[in-house]
């Protein structure tokens, strides 16, 4: 059993959401109001309401096909929502593209790893710093001082980020040649390199063994503590979810069926029913 992680006490806030106590005085980083998307007549996600505190670690769980990844795709504008609003740090993200949402502060990883596999580990990270780098294409071609300065800073920061997961020695390797676990970790680092205020992790522990998962849990908490950002994760590993998430939202058939602290979720009959099915009457 992994060690228990410290987490804040969850308290209700006026918007009827539950956020950690330490985040109560601050405005939430993310607020979804009646978010929904229809594909043709199919309601993939509907009436999704969620508030995430500034430094909260939130979990999004649910059975397969519940619409968890669709929520991530809505937040990052891979799909444009057909209903509702997303407020990121109080700003409506309506009409933004994926790239713009990222620059506004949402970074994500993918369920099926999407690295730039022909580029080196270091390049994978520095490419994510692209929107923070300012030198023009011409200074890049003519190697003006601004090029050297910004490239050096970017490289230093990339190596610093790699040190979170102890991966500095892999900096020169081709991203596609890394072992599976390292690829997953690199994706998280790449997302962090964009300087997000909300990090979305789509099944970060998928395919990891228990000791790797335990390490990942520590690192997610470490990332939250160091960068003071909110993390929202989709995960099927209940050990991970129950141990590090402060607030959990359960999705089934595109609808939120329960929200609350890990303890509340574990004893919620609707959740148990969604996962295990209904007890036979009689």
């Amino acid at each position, binding site marked *: 059993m992994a060690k228990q992680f410290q987490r804040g006490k969850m308290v209700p806030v006026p918007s009827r959401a539950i956020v950690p106590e330490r985040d109560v005085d601050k405005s939430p980083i993310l607020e979804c109001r009646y978010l929904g998307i229809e594909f043709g007549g199919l309601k993939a996600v509907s009436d999704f309401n969620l508030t995430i505190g500034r430094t909260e670690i939130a979990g999004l769980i649910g059975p397969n096909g519940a619409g968890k990844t669709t929520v991530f795709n809505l937040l990052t504008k891979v799909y444009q929502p057909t209903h509702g609003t997303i407020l990121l740090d109080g700003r409506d993200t309506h009409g933004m593209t994926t790239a713009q949402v990222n620059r506004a502060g949402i970074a994500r990883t993918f369920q099926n790893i999407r690295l730039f596999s022909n580029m080196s580990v270091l390049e994978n990270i520095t490419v994510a710093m692209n929107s923070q780098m300012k030198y023009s294409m011409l200074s890049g071609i003519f190697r003006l001082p601004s090029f050297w300065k910004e490239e050096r800073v970017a490289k230093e920061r990339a190596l610093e980020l790699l040190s979170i997961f102890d991966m500095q020695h892999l900096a020169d390797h*081709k991203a596609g040649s890394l072992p599976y676990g390292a690829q997953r970790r690199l994706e998280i680092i790449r997302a962090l390199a964009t300087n997000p205020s909300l990090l979305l992790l789509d099944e970060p522990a998928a395919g990891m063994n228990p000791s790797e998962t335990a390490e990942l849990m520590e690192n997610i908490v470490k990332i939250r503590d160091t960068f003071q950002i909110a993390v929202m994760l989709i995960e099927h590993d209940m050990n991970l979810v129950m141990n590090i998430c402060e607030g959990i939202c359960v999705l089934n058939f595109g609808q939120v069926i329960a929200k609350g602290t890990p303890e509340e979720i574990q004893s919620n009959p609707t959740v148990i029913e969604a996962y295990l099915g209904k007890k036979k009457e009689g």
Partner: protein
Amino acid sequence: MKKLTIKRTTRTDFITYLGVIVAFLIMMFLRDQGVLNRSLTGQLVPICCYISMAISLNLTVGILGELSLGHAGFMSVGAFSGIITAMSLQSTIPYTPLRLAVAMVVGAIFAAIAGIIVGVPVLRLRGDYLAIVTLAFGEIIKDLINCLLVGYDSNGLHMALNLTGSKSITDLNLQPDGIAIIKGAQGATGTTTIASFTAGFVLVMITLVIVLNLVRSRTGRAVMAIRDNRIAAESVGINVTKYKLIAFVTSAALAGAAGALYGLNFSSLQATKFNFNTSILVLVFVVLGGLGNIWGSVIAATVLTILPEALRGFDDYRMLIYAIVLILVMLATNNSQAKALLGRIIPKRKGAETNG
């Protein structure tokens, strides 16, 4: 440890530059000694142009990962705008190298504009649309220039489009001192050839500097990220259309400069020279040299331009041998055993290499 990659990529770049410089010096020396035969001397400038074409197409196909089948179209735009510029500036800029440089810059600008016109609508789409549209672009440009009549006299430039086939160069009403620069289907005739091997060498070096430095800057990284995974690239805040357009237009502009040099190397040039076959020829250079591999493009362009000339002695079997060489090279470079052999000869080639 961390310095290794930087060193390796810089070393590859350095060797590429050095190779081109050494090759240039050797060819200059041989030419001055009179060792080279006439046909090879005549090939020197076209080789430089084709190297430049191959490097620039590699930017679109290898680095950006979009198929372009109309690269000769951009070359054509550059060639004819370059010829017009050079011919009309003959009295204004008597110093030939400067006139040549101006013509190449103008060629690059016009090709870039053509690149923007093609790229803006097409690069927003996903899929192989660029291949189809560039293919059409190459044909359209060829037909347009086939109808183009351009003359220059003391009153300035005169242009007309001979779409119906009823016009001729006399319809431009040139003054007696005027010269006809482009005569429709006859193409550009009577061009003063001001291209030189040195200019070709400078063009290749500039192309190399631009493409290699671009690839190793944040712009190039963004472009390669789009090639590797578009969705992930968007998710880290990269404006996909913008970077696609940057790479495509840069590639078009370089092709335009190469075209201008090519055009000013021949006293007579027809638009049909830049047809689909030429586009494919350049694509063959890129594929054979290796996608994303810049020095590979340089070598492939050189060898495959010289080869048909060198094989003249075989008469009818010339193209047959050319094809066999192509197949053998493909087999050799795609053969895992051959690669393993190379790997043993060149030790410690770790996975860190992103492009050669």
